[in-house]
């Protein structure tokens, strides 16, 4: 009998703990399916670290709307089918208030129908244009698109009077998506692509393709669209072949590693990059300077690692979400969605964000800086 009483007391206590009074102070839940392991871990790893770091920081400062933030993150390994499962879990089981995540375009696109159906605001951290074009009611994104990178490069070429170019793209998701966008927007800037070649991400020699581009009549510049170590091989080959044409790279090589691997051949290479990578060389008048310096210092202090633009995207996503909760004054999904859409003049690591009903990314070409490599380091191109 006493055992029975004890059990009843336990149930009563549990019921009390779950009563609405206690519920009002429940944390605001942020769901994040991220590619923390697997081939896309270079995206998910800094994203997760950034979210953990800043949620801790925000909670230390008292949280949002008087409530703590709680991160619920799952590792989808970059696989869309897993991202779908975890998104269902976040919506149905964890009942999150917002989703900030989706490291890869595939995972994000797989998640879109679920968040649209459930009516949960979703800020994606993946690159491709298809995520926000056409506009989807509940879906936003923070990273720049590859189309913007191509446009930034073509804008610079136009300024220098270069109109006939050779396009060398990498046979990878990143390179092929970049090639598609580059071909789509070239006409807008009066750029003619006279030679078009491809290379594999693990190729040790690209001189054949480069020689073909070099020997194309009238070619005035080379544009390489690739990611990681492949473009460094291309750059070295360009040096070995003695090609002196102006050389452009995409934002995919915006890391110290690229300069290290390419050595002297990287001199004079131009590329579009987010302000975050050149935090130190930005003029003090730049509105993004305090933001990118702050993020970069906080991240480096904690993890003893260099920042990447990807972690920056997660920072922007989290901050946009937090600002939206504050503006909405609640976690009501519809109000938060409207508040995200009303984001204006938000200064993030990726650029100045001005969202609208027709633009769920809110970045323009000014988000990219045109850099030139001089004396083995990044400088702002004039």
């Amino acid at each position, binding site marked *: 009998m006493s055992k029975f009483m004890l059990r009843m007391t336990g149930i009563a206590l549990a019921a009390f703990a779950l009563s609405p009074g206690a519920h009002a102070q429940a944390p605001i839940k942020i769901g994040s399916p991220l590619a923390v392991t697997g081939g896309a871990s270079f995206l998910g790893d800094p994203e997760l670290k950034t979210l953990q770091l800043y949620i801790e920081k925000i909670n230390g400062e008292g949280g949002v709307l008087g409530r703590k933030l709680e991160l619920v993150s799952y590792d989808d390994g970059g696989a869309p089918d897993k991202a779908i499962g975890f998104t269902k*879990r976040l919506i*149905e089981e964890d009942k999150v208030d917002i989703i900030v995540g989706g490291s890869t375009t595939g995972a994000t696109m797989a998640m879109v129908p679920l968040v649209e159906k459930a009516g949960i605001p979703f800020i994606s951290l993946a690159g491709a244009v298809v995520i926000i074009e056409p506009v989807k009611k509940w879906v936003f994104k923070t990273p720049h698109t590859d189309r913007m990178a191509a446009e930034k490069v073509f804008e610079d070429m136009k300024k220098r009077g270069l109109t006939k170019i050779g396009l060398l793209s990498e046979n990878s998701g990143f390179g092929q998506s970049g090639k598609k966008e580059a071909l789509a927007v070239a006409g807008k800037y009066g750029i003619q692509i006279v030679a078009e070649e491809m290379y594999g991400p693990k190729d040790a020699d690209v001189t054949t393709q480069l020689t073909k581009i070099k020997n194309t009549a009238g070619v005035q510049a080379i544009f390489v669209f690739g990611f990681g170590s492949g473009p460094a091989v291309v750059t070295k080959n360009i040096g070995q072949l003695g090609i002196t044409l102006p050389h452009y790279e995409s934002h995919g090589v915006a890391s110290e590693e690229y300069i290290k691997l390419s050595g002297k051949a990287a001199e004079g290479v131009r590329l579009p990059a987010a302000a975050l990578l050149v935090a130190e060389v930005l003029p003090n008048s730049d509105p993004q300077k305090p933001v990118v310096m702050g993020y970069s210092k906080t991240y480096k202090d904690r993890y003893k690692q260099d920042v990447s633009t990807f972690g920056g995207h997660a920072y922007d996503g989290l901050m946009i979400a937090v600002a939206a909760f504050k503006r909405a004054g609640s976690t009501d999904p519809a109000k938060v969605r409207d508040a995200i859409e009303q984001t204006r003049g938000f200064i993030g690591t990726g650029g100045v964000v001005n969202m609208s009903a027709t633009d769920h990314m809110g970045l323009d070409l000014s988000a990219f800086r045109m850099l030139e490599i001089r004396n083995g380091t990044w400088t702002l191109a004039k």
Partner: protein
Amino acid sequence: MGRFRGLAALALIIALLPLALPNNYYYDVAIRIGMNAIIVVGLNLLIGYAGQISLGHAGFVGLGAYASAVLSSRFGWPPLAAMLFGMAAVGVIAFVVARPILRLRGHYLAMATLGLGIIIYMVLVNESAWTGGNDGMSVRPFSLLGLTLASERAWYWVTGAVLLGAILLANNIVDSPVGRALRAVHGSEVAAQVAGIDTTRYKVRVFVLSAVFASAVGSMMAHYLGFVSPQVSSFFHSIELVTMVVVGGMASTYGAVLGAAILTTLPQLLATFEGYEMITFGLILMLTVIFLPRGLLPTIAARLRKAG
């Protein structure tokens, strides 16, 4: 005798399980278990009964998934037609490659099937004009005669029914002369040949059958998830499938279902510990092979029999 008892027990579990499923997320896990179980029941015929390894079965799942995705979403085929076409095409492909591949044994067979899976994966990634490349593509929902299959609940019952059908089919094969021939091949291929069994023919048949099972599930997954990516045919997925067979119990159809249940649920439990999923899979596979070489269900069944 016990042939229909197992099936009835499983049918009862499937019928009663929804009472314990609080929301769609749990339905989702149950559906994934069911779909994996169908593949594994087929794969178990090949690995468990005929003793032939395949490290490329995720490739067939991928082919089925993309057949449904591309034909129904890009060409407007009715989903059922796309699914059946996928199964037929995979059957033909499996039949063509089976003869040369199944002449190999041991490591060489493992290598050849591994290569096959990787080739399929590469094709799905590279033919991006059709498949959407690495980023995958979305698939329209399954519909038949004007009815659309969209909710988790509907998919749960469909998956359950297909699973029971697959088990019935597998059990019938196991208890038929074909099944006996397969077990003879597993025991000793030479002895089976001496006894007058055309071993290659039986091996090819069961390889084709298991590939068609995988393709059918690939199609179901594509429509259920509404999205396909080349990850469904990745090497890791093949390994997952083999692990399910080995852990659940080789040459045990219900063991295969148990294996699928355990190894589909496990990643959900480990989802917050990034990076440990692979290690855990490897560890489970290793420990099973060392301590329970016959797999979970057959070992438990043997213990119970001994005790009783």
